[in-house]
């Protein structure tokens, strides 16, 4: 019984908010600050008698540690990029295609326009109308290019027109906002769950790549023989942090 109550008290301490439990530690440190400081100064003076070759100044130590931490983070980032590129090159066997990895600087996914600003531009071989992949699916095309940045028009943007195919049937998909795209007045009925692919486009895309899936297909109200198809992107665009731009036949 005693054990149970004490264990319960321990669990309460464990799961209590940190700002409350910290008060115990601060109270202890305040109460015993004099003996604690004496003990620390004694131990520090004992340690400082070590050979000077093994010791660096605190500032230098902090600088070196920060440098090492930054280097470690850079290494992690580079490993991620390398892994991503390795995966891309092994998935799509296209002659002359290159993938330029880019980070998303700014994303507009809930306003009038749906677009991304990425940190790669003309300097990296980017050009207008190139296809942009996110999570191995087409998320948009390059609409504007500057020297070091580019704008990507997402497939959900109202002004986006992308040639797509569902099975053997081809159509033009437009952005519908709210994270969706649509194909209006389609001649063929498709099933919910069918994949939608971007059709190949010479000099830009050598083979079809998935864009999204059909989530709704209903007959048009004005033209009952034609169909309105709603498409959900295959990639969670809002969660995108990086993209890959397909650069075909890049001039070295």
């Amino acid at each position, binding site marked *: 019984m005693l054990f149970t109550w*004490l264990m319960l008290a321990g669990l309460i301490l464990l799961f209590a908010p940190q700002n409350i439990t910290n008060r115990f530690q601060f109270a*202890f440190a305040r109460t015993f600050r004099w003996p604690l400081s004496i003990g620390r100064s004694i131990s520090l003076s004992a340690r400082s008698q070590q050979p000077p070759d093994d010791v660096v100044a605190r500032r230098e130590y902090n600088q070196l540690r920060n440098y090492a931490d930054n280097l470690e983070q850079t290494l992690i980032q580079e490993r991620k990029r390398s892994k991503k590129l390795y995966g891309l090159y092994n998935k799509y066997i296209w002659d002359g295609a290159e993938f330029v990895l880019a980070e998303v600087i700014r994303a507009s996914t809930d306003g009038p326009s749906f677009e991304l600003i990425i940190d790669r531009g003309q300097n990296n071989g980017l050009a207008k109308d190139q296809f942009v992949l996110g999570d191995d699916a087409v998320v948009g095309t390059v609409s504007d290019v500057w020297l070091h940045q580019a704008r990507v028009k997402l497939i959900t943007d109202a002004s986006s027109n992308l040639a797509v195919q569902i099975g053997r049937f081809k159509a033009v998909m437009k952005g519908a906002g709210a994270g969706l795209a649509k194909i209006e007045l389609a001649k063929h009925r498709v099933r919910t769950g069918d994949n939608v692919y971007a059709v190949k486009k010479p000099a830009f895309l050598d083979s079809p790549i998935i864009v999204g899936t059909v989530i709704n297909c209903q007959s048009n109200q004005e033209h009952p023989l034609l169909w309105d198809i709603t498409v959900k992107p295959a990639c969670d665009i809002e969660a995108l942090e990086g993209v890959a731009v397909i650069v075909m036949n890049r001039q070295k």
Partner: protein
Amino acid sequence: MRWFRFAVLVLVAAVLQAGLLENFDFKPDLLLILLVFFGVYCRTSDAIITSFTIGFAADLIGPAMGPQIISFGLFGSLLAYLHRVIVIRKMPYQALTIFITGLLTGVLAHLLNLLKERVPASGVWGGLFGISLCSAVIGPFLFLPSLWWMRIRTHRPSRY
């Protein structure tokens, strides 16, 4: 059980641990040594209370409140129940008990710290092994002054 003397002993150990021994890499855990000491020399109910109290003191000087009180309380209580069956009086056995208890409490406290997202950057397992080993080497020798301070008389088996 002399509770006032116990409180003074635990406070002194906590202050020494957080002050004097703080800056050393290879150091004993005085509170761990006390945990095993009271587990070995006290009655079961007293040992349970001392385990949680020492755990609380370890939390006061640790990275977060909670992990040590649970790990010390749990393994201190287990040690107290084990003491009902096995009497640990010889110094090598006491050292081994300190070493094993140190590893177990350290691992559990580390896992609970993970739960609270208060994790030391690196070298946790190496540090844990070093502290347990150092405590095991020094601990049995600290039992003697602790026995004197707590006025605990060890039972000597009669010749007859």
